[in-house]
C-alpha cells in the first residue's frame, strides 16, 4: 500500500486516532513492556478477550522480534518505531525498522507441513498472518514497515 492509499483510507474513516507511537532501541528486552502497553490500550476497543490476550500480543511480539533481530540485525542504536492506530473498524499496528525489507509471501513458510513440524524457527510470519486479519509490508521514508490489521468485532 502506498502513502496515498493510506491517507485515502484514513479519510474514509472518520474516527481515527493514534493510540500509541514510540521509538525503541533494537533490544529484545524492549518487546515485553511495549507489548504490555499496547495490549493495555486495546482494552475497551471492543476487541474480544482472545484478541487482547492472544492475537495482539503474539502478532506484535513477532513483528517487533523480526524488526529488531532481522531488520535492524540487533544493532541497538538502530530504532524501531511502533504505532497503534485505532479506527471505527480496526486496530492497525505498524512496526518500522531500518532494514532492507523482505518479501512477505516468499518468507512465509507453512510450519504445519509434515517436513516442517519439528523446525525450531519459521513460525513467526505464519503466526502473524494467522492471528491478524491482514498483514502488509511496505516501504515508507526509507523504513521497512510491517502493518498488522485486526478488525474490531
Amino acid at each position: 500500500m502506498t502513502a496515498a492509499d493510506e491517507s485515502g483510507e484514513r479519510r474514509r474513516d472518520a474516527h481515527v486516532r493514534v493510540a500509541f507511537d514510540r521509538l525503541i532501541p533494537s533490544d529484545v528486552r524492549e518487546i515485553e513492556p511495549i507489548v504490555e502497553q499496547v495490549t493495555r490500550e486495546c482494552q475497551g476497543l471492543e476487541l474480544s478477550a482472545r484478541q487482547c490476550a492472544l492475537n495482539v500480543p503474539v502478532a506484535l511480539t513477532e513483528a517487533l522480534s523480526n524488526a529488531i533481530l532481522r531488520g535492524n540485525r540487533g544493532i541497538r542504536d538502530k530504532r524501531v518505531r511502533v504505532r497503534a492506530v485505532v479506527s471505527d473498524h480496526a486496530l492497525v499496528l505498524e512496526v518500522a525498522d531500518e532494514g532492507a525489507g523482505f518479501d512477505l509471501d516468499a518468507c512465509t513458510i507453512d510450519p504445519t507441513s509434515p517436513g516442517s513440524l519439528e523446525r525450531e524457527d519459521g513460525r513467526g510470519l505464519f503466526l502473524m498472518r494467522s492471528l491478524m486479519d491482514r498483514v502488509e509490508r511496505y516501504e515508507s521514508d526509507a523504513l521497512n514497515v510491517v502493518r498488522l490489521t485486526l478488525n474490531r468485532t
Partner: protein
Amino acid sequence: MSFSIKKQGEICVVDVEGQLIVGNRQELKQKVLDELEKGEKKFLIDFSQTGYIDSSGLGVLVSLSKKIREQGGELRLANLNDDLKTLFELTKLDTLFQIADTRERALESF
C-alpha cells in the same frame, strides 16, 4: 517472567510464569538442558501461570523436546489455557507434544 524447576519424585516440573518469548527463551532452554545434563530424564512444563508464547518460545519447546528424546527422556506439557491451546493447534504442535489438562494428569502419564 520467571522459570522455576522443582523435583516431584523423578520428574522435573518447570513452571513458566509470565511470557515465554524471544527475550527469555534461552533462560528456559538452559535451565532444562542443565537438568538433562545432570541425568534427569522426565520433564513436565506447566503453563498454568503463562500469559502468551511467541514463535521463539514454541521453537525452544520443539528444540527441548528433540534433545530430551535424544537422551532417552520424555517431555510433557500441562495446563495450557484456551488461548495457548489455540496457538498449539494453529501450528499443529498439539500433534507433536503430549499435553495434559492438569499437572496431576501429566504427572500420572509418565
